[in-house]
Structure formats: C-alpha cells, structure tokens
C-alpha cells in the first residue's frame, strides 16, 4: 500500500467523569487507502463510535483527544484548529449516522438540507446547486428527485431517509466516508439495498469508507479489511476473508462463533462467558482475560501488544490461535 489516505496513530480519547476517567479509545492505530472499505467492529462500549467522532473532531467536553495522530493525507487533524475542521467536515470527511430518524432536521426540507452542504463547501450558483442535489438524489435511488427536494423528512420512510443522509454525505465529494451503524435501524431487504448503494458510490468515487458496526456478517460482505476493538483497544486486524475464516485473537473467534451457523447442527452456541468489564476499572494485563478460556498467569501481568501473526493478521494476544484451533 502506498501512502494511506487516512492514518490513525496511537489515538487516545478520554472522558473525565465524576465516576472516574473513561479511556474510551486507548491507543488505536489503523490505515485506510483510497478506494478501501475498513470495518471497525466490536460490541457496545468497545469505543468504535468514539473513534469515528474523534476523526471528525466531534468530541465535546468532558471528552478530549488525549494523544495520537489522525493523519489525513499527512495533515494531523488531532491538532488542527476548529476552523480547519469545519472545512474538513462534510467536504473531505463525511459521516452517516445510525438513526435516519434523528440525523435529519425535521423543520427543513430535504432540498434545503442538501443545499446547505453545497453552499458551505462549493462556489456553485443556486441553479447549479439544485441540479447537483437532484442528480445526487437520483443516484441514491430516489425517484422523482426534483419534486422530493421540497419534501420534509417525515414524508420519507426509514430506508428513504437513510438514502437522503447518504446523498447529503456524498454531495461535496468527500474522500472518506465514516458510516456509523448505517443499516442497523433498517430491515434486512432495505439493508441490502443501502449496503449495495454505499459500496457502489464508494467505488465510483474512489473514496474510502470506515464502516462501524457490531454486525460481523455485514462487515464480511462489505469490508476489505477489519479492525476489531475491545475496551477501546485494537485486539485484532487483518484482511476480511482471513480474519473471518481463521482469526488469531480468542475474542474475534468468540464473536464469530456466537453467530449461529446454519451448517453446524450443534444445539448449543459457543458463547463468550461473562460480560465486558467496567471500562473505568479495567483489570491489569489483558482486558479480555476475564472472559478468555486461554488466559494464563502472564495475561494478568503483561498487557499484550498488537503484533504480526500469520498472513495479514495482527493480534494483541500472548496465546494466539492457530488456524482452525478453537479457544
């Protein structure tokens, strides 16, 4: 890979609360090249959404970015002033949020919300902006686009609203799209439509995408490579096919095995015991050791580093899995 489009290096984001400091993102690094889709997966509280918000500089007090670099084409966004971030947001990096019901302003027409992006980020005249909006709505599969510009969000269904949100995100021609659970609120046949649409738009525009999701099945169909987060740290990353087929980290294995497998006629699912630890009081050593069947004394003493395993895989584990091995 040549110089990546986005390179996140040792990102730390913390929230100082009365109940203690939450290190929501604790030293996360990854690279994405142009035209690539990266899946960022993990369970609730893993820190995956905070990574997305950090890249866009959308961390509000009591949260703060506490260290690390967010390099977009070599420019460090973690140290950029707010005025520069305002130029970046929407123009170079755009975001699609989970809930299409709340990410549009109910008081403005869809056309006005689309127009705003172009007014802020381009010098197009109003007729040209309108034309661009119609073309974009059309390309995300909304029929009678010029009429629909005058409609309000409540006049659209959930799937249609998510198309509008995607259209707004793509309008200024961003190089990176961050999609945070973009299809979680949608039905499965609509989800398939939206995922196909996003994939096609990314490919046509040569843009990159971070797909944040808890759904490994979605990631396995969409992403070129995957980063797995647990308690704010990267526990494993690698090419999608390899990571899904034979992960090296027991947590990734556990996530995959928790999904019922139609070809496996066992009656019990393999489950990960226990629950995610309290992120304010993480245990010493490996964060996963309390739930890990392979944990040894060393896991309680030494925190594992993310190191190269077989193939494209990197995993943070003292006792990584061999291919085909179960934890």
């Amino acid at each position, binding site marked *: 890979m040549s110089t990546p489009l986005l390179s996140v290096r040792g990102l730390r984001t913390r929230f100082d609360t009365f109940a203690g400091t939450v290190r929501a993102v604790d030293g996360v690094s990854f690279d994405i090249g142009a035209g690539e889709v990266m899946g960022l997966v993990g369970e609730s509280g893993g820190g995956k959404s905070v990574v997305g918000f950090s890249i866009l500089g959308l961390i509000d007090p009591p949260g703060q970015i506490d260290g690390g670099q967010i390099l977009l084409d070599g420019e460090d966004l973690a140290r950029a002033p707010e005025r520069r971030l305002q130029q970046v947001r929407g123009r170079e990096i755009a975001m699609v949020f989970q809930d299409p019901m709340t990410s549009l302003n109910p008081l403005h027409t869809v056309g006005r919300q689309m127009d705003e992006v172009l007014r802020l980020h381009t010098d197009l005249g109003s007729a040209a902006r309108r034309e661009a909006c119609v073309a974009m709505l059309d390309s995300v599969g909304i029929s009678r686009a010029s009429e629909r510009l005058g409609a309000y969000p409540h006049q659209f269904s959930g799937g249609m609203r998510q198309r509008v949100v995607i259209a707004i995100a793509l309008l200024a021609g961003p190089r990176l799209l961050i999609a945070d659970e973009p299809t979680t609120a949608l039905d499965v046949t609509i989800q398939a439509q939206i995922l196909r649409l996003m994939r096609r738009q990314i490919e046509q525009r040569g843009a990159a995408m971070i797909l944040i999701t808890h759904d490994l099945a979605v990631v396995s169909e969409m992403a070129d490579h995957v980063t797995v987060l647990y308690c704010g740290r990267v526990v494993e990353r690698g090419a999608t*096919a390899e990571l899904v087929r034979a992960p090296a980290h027991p947590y990734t294995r556990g996530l995959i095995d928790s999904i019922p497998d139609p070809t496996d006629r066992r009656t019990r699912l393999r489950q990960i015991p226990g629950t995610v630890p309290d992120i304010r009081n993480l245990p010493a050593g490996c964060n996963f050791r309390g739930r890990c069947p392979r944990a040894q004394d060393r896991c309680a003493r030494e925190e594992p580093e993310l190191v190269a395993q077989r193939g494209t895989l990197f995993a943070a584990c003292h006792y990584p899995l061999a291919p085909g091995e179960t934890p």
Partner: protein
Amino acid sequence: MTAMLEVRDLAMEFAVGGGLFDRLRIDRGGVRLANPVVHAVNGVSFSIERGQVMALVGESGCGKSTVAKAIARIHRPTAGEIRIDGQDIASLGQRALLPVRARMQMIFQDPYASLDPRQRVRDIVAEPLLEQRGSRRGVAEEVAALLARVGLNAEHGGRYPHQFSGGQRQRIGIARALSVRPGLIVADEPVSALDVSIQAQILNLMMDLRDEFGLAYLFISHDLSVVHHIADHVGVMYLGFLVETAPRDALFATPRHPYTRALLSAAPSIRDRSGTPEIELVGEVPSALDLPSGCCFHTRCPFAWDRCAAERPVLRDVDGGQAVACHLLDEPERDRP
C-alpha cells in the same frame, strides 16, 4: 393430543383515529368522515406442539409482534381463535385470563423497558407467582431457585434493574416468565437488543430451559440466523399475512414464496460470501392502511402477473409440511426472472 397453541384466522385491526379535520374527506358525494383502519394481521393460522419452537419472521410492520401480543392477550384480537391447550382465549376478559397466564407467559424485546425500575428483582420475579397463588408461602425459595436457574445469584434478588446489564436483565425477564411454570412462552425479539456474545448466552439458556421444562416457544425475530438456530418450524409474514410456513430445514433449503426467497438472499452472512442474491427486492413495503389488491406482495414481486393483483392467494400445503400462499404454485413456468 391437542396442540399447546393453535391460532386460527387471527385478525387484528387498529383504528387510526385522529382529529375531526384529519379524517374529513370531501368528495363528489359531499363531506364525510373517514375511519381509517390499520390491517395489522389478516387471517393468520398456525399451531405449536408441546416442546416445539415456532418462529415468526418478517420485516418491521409485517405484524409479527402484533400476533405475539394478541396471543399473549395484550391486545384483544378483532377476529379469530387462539386456543391454548384447546381453550379459546381470544375473547376472554381480564379476570378469566388470570388462570390462562399460568400456562402462557411473555418475554419482551427491550430489557430496559420491561422491568419496573422501582421494584427489586426478587419482587419482579415473584409477582406472577403471587398473582396466581395469592399466598407468599414458599415463594421466596422458589424465586431464589429461579434466579439460580437463569444464572443469577441470590444476592442479585435484592437489587434493582438499573444495576444490571442488558443480558442480565433479560435473564430476570426469563425468570419472571418461568416462575408460574407455563407451557408456552411468547418471546418477542428477546435477543435483538443484546450484543452478539450475550445473545448466544441467552439463546443457550432458552434452549436449555425448553429441554428441562418441555416449554413451547413462539419466537418472534427478524434475524434469520437466530431463527435458523432455534426454531423447529418457521412462519414468514408480510404485511399481516402469513405467506409461507415450513419446518426449519425445508424453509431454509427450499424457500418457495418469492418473498421468503428474497428475504433469505438479502440476509448478510458471515459464512457464505457467494455471488449475487437470487432475488433483489426494490421498493418498500406498502402501507397497512391501504392493502394492495390481490396478493399482498405483488407490488414488489419480480414474478407478479395480472392474476396476482386480482386474486388473493391462500396458504396451500405443498410437500414436506410446507405451505405457501402464491399463485406460482399453479403456474410454475412463470418462475424465472
């Protein structure tokens, strides 16, 4: 032997209501008041044997949760029969339903909203027992045993729901449902609010309890991989109609209804990354306020022809215990894109 649950021609309609001016219609004949009705469930029939798991799948608005709530008698159905152990409960009043609730309980989707935040866990679990027996004798011991059975310990009984995670709360909901030793549990999306690793724990617990107590489940879900894992029998719903029912393996191996086929091919899978889906659906589900004529699916079906808009297909048995509501059964030669 009578079935644990038998549902026949269940229908559920909801009046939309709204203010006078929302309902006012002016047409050629003059001014009139419209009474719009949501046709949530339109004549659904199925049965569940003891110890069996029947899953209802479909997308939002297909009526699967409404079926669950009608069977649990949270709603009073507009028409149809609901037989629990042979007894029709479709139109029973609240007092007559009390003994029925000892045979049928419900587990809800949202573990945050379905537990009273001001009650201690032991009181939540004891409530159905106290309702049924009217006496506290032995209840404390039974509650302790129930909590232990679902994987919580005795000290948890003194805590409040907010002190628990989503998975633990769902265990409390299961203990509450189990307390009166029902034969049937209606579970409406019991794992969809949970993380995948916790989902597996709860599914395993539910299946262990089925084996131990001979429970029958009506399992409502939109997640096909979960349904494939847990169900013996599957019913597919679309716009309030049951369009296909089949034993689990038959449904997943040879789905017959075009909607079932589209649903199966749209579901993302971690194991099977093969090629293009068999049927790609375009467009969205029509409104239940204004049902399409003929077949409910004809507006999105790639095979639909004029008969589909004119005549509503009924559920007909095909081989292997499968039943399908589709005109393609009569004209299989039309089944190609």
